[in-house]
């Protein structure tokens, strides 16, 4: 999978409360959640973001609450991929589970500036900065997680395993 889009750059410890504030958690409708995505850290984000855009951040992206509404809101806002120096663990799992592509790429977190044009090759784990003509190498998913991604998300993976008798029936 290859994505191309404009980078929206953030610092470290972007928590899920600012990605989607709890006051909007009285719904799980992706469209409604997307309308408030990043509202408490970047009020203009939702007006600026274009389909395919890429969020780039420093360490510990998605820390705090386990709310899956956070990656859901980001995905529904049209973001194609999140690239960060590191992710908080629950956000990492949630993103994979709902099919929001993420890449761990400390080099990109350092090199990318807000507004840069990026091309991300998910299979190769490459982030190309088209604005600065640089390439950053990201970590690849462990095989175990690639299986989940290949199956199209966790529930499809579970369904497949259940049907083949692989898990507790």
């Amino acid at each position: 999978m290859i994505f191309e889009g404009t980078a929206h750059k953030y610092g470290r410890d972007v928590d899920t409360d600012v990605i989607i504030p709890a006051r909007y958690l009285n719904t799980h409708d992706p469209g409604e959640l997307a309308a408030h995505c990043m509202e408490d850290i970047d009020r203009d984000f939702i007006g600026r973001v274009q389909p395919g855009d890429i969020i780039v951040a420093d360490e510990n992206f998605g820390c705090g609450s386990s709310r899956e509404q956070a990656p859901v809101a980001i995905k529904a806002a049209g973001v194609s991929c999140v690239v960060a120096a590191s992710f908080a663990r629950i956000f990492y799992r949630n993103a994979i589970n709902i099919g929001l592509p993420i890449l761990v790429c400390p080099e990109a977190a350092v090199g990318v500036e807000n507004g840069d044009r990026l091309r991300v090759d998910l299979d190769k784990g490459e982030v190309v900065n088209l604005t600065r003509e640089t390439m950053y190498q990201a970590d690849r998913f462990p095989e175990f997680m690639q299986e989940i991604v290949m199956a199209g998300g966790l529930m499809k993976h579970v369904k497949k395993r259940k049907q083949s008798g692989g898990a507790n029936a």
Partner: protein
Amino acid sequence: MARPMTITEKILARACAQEEVRAGDFVNARLDLALANDITAPLAIQEFEAAGMTRVWDPEKVVLVCDHFVPNKDIKSAEQAKLVREFARRQGLTNFYDVGRMGIEHVILPEKGLVVPGDVVIGADSHTCTYGALGAFATGVGSTDLAAGMATGEVWLRVPETVRFNYEGEPGRYVTGKDYILYTIGLIGVDGALYQAMEFCGSAIKALSMDGRFTMCNMAIEAGGKNGIVEPDAITEEYCRGRALREPVMMKSDEGAQYERVIDIDVGSIELQVAKPHLPSNSVPASELADLKIDQVVIGSCTNGRIEDLRMAAEVLKGRKVHPDVRAIVFPGSQLVYQQAMREGLVDVFIDAEVAVSTPTCGPCLGGHMGILADGERCVSTTNRNFVGRMGHTGSEVYLAGPYVAAATAIAGTVAVPEEVLA
């Protein structure tokens, strides 16, 4: 003979029926309990049903608690809670807790004996790590992981490396588990234990009450931890007696188990802590914040809403009045805690001190309802997060502290330690 393992590794090895596991292994662990609340369950139910699943793996082991936006704060929240309620009925869940029977999930699950030492628990709530205080492996997940857990009774996990924290020495007067954990997060940072197990050990932990241990394990997530854990001992056994619904399996880390790091902490040097906005790692001695005016004080939550916490608050508030410029609110963590507080006369202490006492709810902690802050307002809270906008307006501020500091602050109107108001 398996190689020496940490308590976390041993619990996970048992849950996947292997003689040993190592940090870094991927395992499919059998679940003893899967938990969700009124905010995370609707999404989990939607995923569960969309995948064509019809029955949960075990109606006694899927626990649903409506605690975040209940009593329903608005029509949308009411619809979400209704969805959860109807699913619980359809599935015949034995452990569904609604208004009047509920409490804050991480207070009631241990209280009802639903979690026992040796368990593997996932919860669609990041503070599920609280149950590590019982010597169980418990970790927070998202709604889809929970949906898969409800369907299969299993969860995939990467066995975490463990950081061992040795707490030694004698704590000062009024220094509690909350001060230990705020100090620790300040020391290692909000991603200081990312993906790792935080094992709390040492003589000061052996001397800590169950409620204090719950407080510490509850905040492991605020250092990025996968789980917090305390080796079960006589205090754990005493807590489990008469409430554990299953046979506890008491495990201990082996001599020679491998740790990613060992951090020694002298609790005698820990002062009463306050974590400044907007990260739980911004902890400083409370004394550094004297004169800081406070508008609201919140005492309660899954972090500090247990009976011992309310006793601490009452000890300071007894016979005194909340400062005229402060709104103080106490949220007992469960109906049982509430009732116990009434029996002990704590509720009278609070009401006499002009504190509002609320039904159990997560409400204010996450800026849901029942104590939202306006622009520019400051709150000292015994909760667990002080992120931007966490308790309301993005221009408001949350200072995290333990019940003693919170209660003293309520009286003083500025950040205070008990000695200042008890004089």
